[in-house]
Each structure stands twice: as structure tokens, then as C-alpha cells.
């Protein structure tokens, strides 16, 4: 058997073994904190498929999507402007560096003060936090555009909207997506934290509430759900990337 096949078998078998081991190891667990994994999975099925899906999962996803979308649009737009004007980039640098260094959850008290504890506050803090990676990556991408490419656009009089949509944005695409990838994991973190701090629904709220009620299998099911959400969101962005940036993947592969 060749190494390739062994590798493939390992990649499939080991995760299954890990899950099986966890189930076996926890089977007779009487620990208050770590109930049997099977209990967690049963609770998961009862809670999330689809009893509390509408009341908790959808509000969380809505906040995440709204904040993330705002951050992406504003980040790309501001990034294009700042990246295209060298003076603007130098002027904005210290301000951006400082704002981005603030640990994101520290903005939540500010958000609560100014916007209250509703969805507006949550969407605001999610958007602010996701903004920086998108913005900074867009600026990097614009400044890294190939000079031959921009010279070609000048020679052929490709200006205005055509230049933006057919030269600048596609050329910056790989960096923009890299920023969006970082932004996505931040968006999920901020959704959860904002729901932990102040909320009346959402997955983060559910997990905290379960813990306060000592409903331990429920708490675990929420933690597992957040893990699954993180994985699925990341995978979804990966799919979008494969489609939108197909040219980039092929071009870098054939350059090797």
C-alpha cells in the first residue's frame, strides 16, 4: 500500500477514532461538568434541530451577517480610497493601527452606552471589529497591484467604473478575501461575546443561561453548535473563494 492511501485512511480514521474514544471514555461519566458525550448529542438534536433554531440561531446569524456585510462593504470601499492615495494611507496609518489594537470586546461597553443593548449595538460592534482586517488587506492589495497591469489600464484608457470593477477589484480580490476570512472568525467571536454580555436571545445567551441554570448538557450542546457554526461559516467562505477566485488558484498553480 502506498503512502498516499495510508495518509488518506489516517485522515479519515483518526477523527472518527477521536470521537469514538470520547464517547467511550465519557460513557459512564458521573462528572457534573462533563456528562457523557452521547447525552450532549441527544440534547443537541432536541435543542437545535429545530426547536430553538428560530428563536436563538437565526437572531445570532442575523447579527453576524449584518455586521459582517457592513464591515466588508465599508472596509473595501475605504480600503480602495486609502490604498489609491499614498498620502491618505500614511495619514490613516497611526489611527487605524491604534483602533485595531483595542481588544474588540472592550468596545462593547461603549456600544451599550451609546446604542443600548439591542441588535443595533451588536451589529455595530461586530462591524467595527471586522472592519480592520478587511480594510488593511484591501489597502495592501491596492498598493500591491502590478504596475504593468495599471500601466496597461492607462494605455487603453480604462478608467472610472471599468477600472474599478474590471482591473482594481479583481486584482485585489485575493487580499480582500484573506481579510474577509480573518473578519469572519472575528464576527463569530463578537456575536458570541456581545450575546454573553447583554442579550435576551441568541446562541451565546443560550449557553450562558444554560450554565446559570446548571443545565449542563444544554450548555455543551450550545458550545458544540458554536463550533459547528464556526466550521461551516469558514467552509462556506472557502466555497465562495473557490468560485470567485478560480483564476487566482489556477494562475498560482500553473506558475509553480
Amino acid at each position: 500500500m502506498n503512502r498516499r492511501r495510508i495518509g488518506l485512511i489516517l485522515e479519515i480514521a483518526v477523527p472518527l477514532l477521536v470521537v469514538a474514544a470520547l464517547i467511550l471514555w465519557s460513557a459512564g461519566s458521573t462528572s457534573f461538568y462533563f456528562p457523557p458525550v452521547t447525552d450532549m448529542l441527544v440534547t443537541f438534536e432536541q435543542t437545535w434541530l429545530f426547536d430553538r433554531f428560530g428563536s436563538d440561531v437565526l437572531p445570532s446569524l442575523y447579527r453576524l451577517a449584518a455586521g459582517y456585510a457592513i464591515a466588508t462593504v465599508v472596509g473595501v470601499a475605504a480600503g480602495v480610497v486609502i490604498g489609491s492615495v499614498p498620502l491618505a494611507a500614511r495619514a490613516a496609518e497611526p489611527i487605524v493601527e491604534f483602533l485595531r489594537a483595542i481588544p474588540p470586546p472592550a468596545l462593547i461597553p461603549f456600544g451599550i452606552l451609546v446604542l443600548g443593548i439591542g441588535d443595533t449595538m451588536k451589529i455595530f460592534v461586530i462591524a467595527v471589529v471586522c472592519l480592520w482586517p478587511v480594510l488593511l488587506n484591501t489597502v495592501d492589495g491596492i498598493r500591491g497591484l502590478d504596475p504593468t497591469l495599471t500601466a496597461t489600464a492607462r494605455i487603453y484608457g480604462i478608467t472610472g467604473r471599468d477600472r474599478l470593477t474590471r482591473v482594481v477589484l479583481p486584482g485585489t480580490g485575493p487580499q480582500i478575501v484573506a481579510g474577509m476570512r480573518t473578519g469572519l472568525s472575528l464576527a463569530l467571536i463578537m456575536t458570541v461575546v456581545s450575546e454573553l454580555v447583554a442579550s435576551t436571545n441568541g446562541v451565546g445567551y443560550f449557553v450562558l443561561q444554560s450554565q446559570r441554570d446548571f443545565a449542563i448538557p444544554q450548555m455543551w450542546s450550545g458550545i458544540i453548535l458554536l463550533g459547528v457554526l464556526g466550521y461551516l461559516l469558514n467552509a462556506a467562505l472557502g466555497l465562495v473563494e473557490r468560485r470567485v477566485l478560480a483564476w487566482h488558484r489556477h494562475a498560482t498553480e500553473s506558475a509553480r
Partner: protein
Amino acid sequence: MNTRTDDNHRPTATDGKRDSVLEVSGLQKTYGSGARATVAIGDVSFDVAKEEFVCVVGPSGCGKTTLLKCMSGLMTPTAGQVRLAGTPVDGPPEQLALVFQDYSRSLMPWLTVRGNIALPLRRRRLSAADRDERIREAVDSVGLTGFTDHYPFQLSGGMQQRVAIARALAYQPDILLMDEPFASVDAQTRADLEDVMLAVRRRYGVTILFVTHDIDEAVYLADRVVVLTQRPTSVHEVVTVDLPADRDQVTTKETAEFTHLRAHIYRAIRRPAA
């Protein structure tokens, strides 16, 4: 309209009255200022007549690329002037196309062959039928028929450069500038691309200014060869190539005239600037 037969009589430098498309007069370019100033181009003047094929050769590092950037309006000269069809150049003119040496970076990798050729045509405001016809003709004349829906990364280097040439042809400029376009392809591809240039030149009747460091290539392609000196660059000599218009990689290159011109230019380039 684009197909015309060649009449073997081309205007030469000795003709008094010529219909100039491109005039370069007293061009000078200095980088930096004060004590650290470097004169890249000292004083360059020449012109290119309508439908003429002019090659520019010179020793390496003689500022050929700088010269080209000034002529295409990508760079402002320190002194002197470039005129295209009588109008001073102060930015990339609408009636000029440029083929870069680095084809892989001048094509948009996210557009197909068709998309790349069509992009500059958007400012021409053509009807869809006219546009498609222009693309088809350009693709045919560079020998890329059947590849319009391919992406650049699916094509070899030589084919990518054909796309760049087709893009310039479909744009139908008054003058086509080419910056060492075949410097990064292998020898066989290079010969093929040279013949493509002779063919499209005949088919489109386009005026071409072709910068190269390869003397054989210059003599093979050109009606006239502008020989530059070392830095600070000036025009050393303008050589008229009196070879028949129908050229062939083997028979043309074995004529005495070709060998003589080639040797003449070679000596001119090796001689230190007077």
C-alpha cells in the same frame, strides 16, 4: 478595408515630405535633481511615418524603456516633445496601443482571451456586432482561433503574447508601440511571433514602433532601424532596410544585404558613443 497588398515601396528617411504619425523631437529625461541627477536620455529625435515599421535598438541599459514610456505618455520627459498625429503627447493618447514585454502581467488573469481583448474596446463605443467582428479578426490574424474562451493561465507564454498583440490590433490604434515583446519567449516561438507581426502589419496597415535589443530581429522586421547610443542616450544612426517586403526567416536572413545590415548595426552599437 484592413486587407491591403504590399507595394514594396515604402517611404524612407531620405524622402523629404512624409506623412509623420509620430515625431520625437529633442527628447530628454533626467531622473532626480541636483548632484544626484542621472541623465537617462540625452537628446533623441526621430520620426515614424504612416504605415511604417520602425525598430529601435541600442546597447543594454541605454534607456529604451524610458524612451518608450515617454512616447506612450506614461512618463513626462524633462525636455523636448513627442507628437502623435500632430498633437503633443501629455498622457496616454487614445490612438496609441502598447504591447509590454511582460505579457503575463499585462493581461488580466481573471478575464478570458475575449474579455481581455474586449476590455479596451469599451471606450470605443462599438455596436456588439462591430466589436465581435474586431475581436474575431484580431484573434484570427494572430493565430488564436478557437482560444477565445480560454484564460491566460491556460495558454503558453507565446500564446499569451499573441493575446496581447490581438488586444492591441482590435483597438485599431494609429500607432502600435512594442517594448521588447519577444524577449521572454524561446527562439522558435520568437520566430513565429516575428512572422505574425509581419502578417498583421500587412493585414492591418498599422504603424509600428518596435523596441528590441536583438539586431537580427530589428533588421528582419523593420523598414528603418533607429540605432541608439549608450547613456546619455541619443540617436547614433538611422539605418534604412532595403530588403523586399516579403520576408522569410531563412531566405531573407541568408541574403548578403541582410548580413551586411546586421554587421553594420552591430558595429555601430559596439562603438562607444562619440
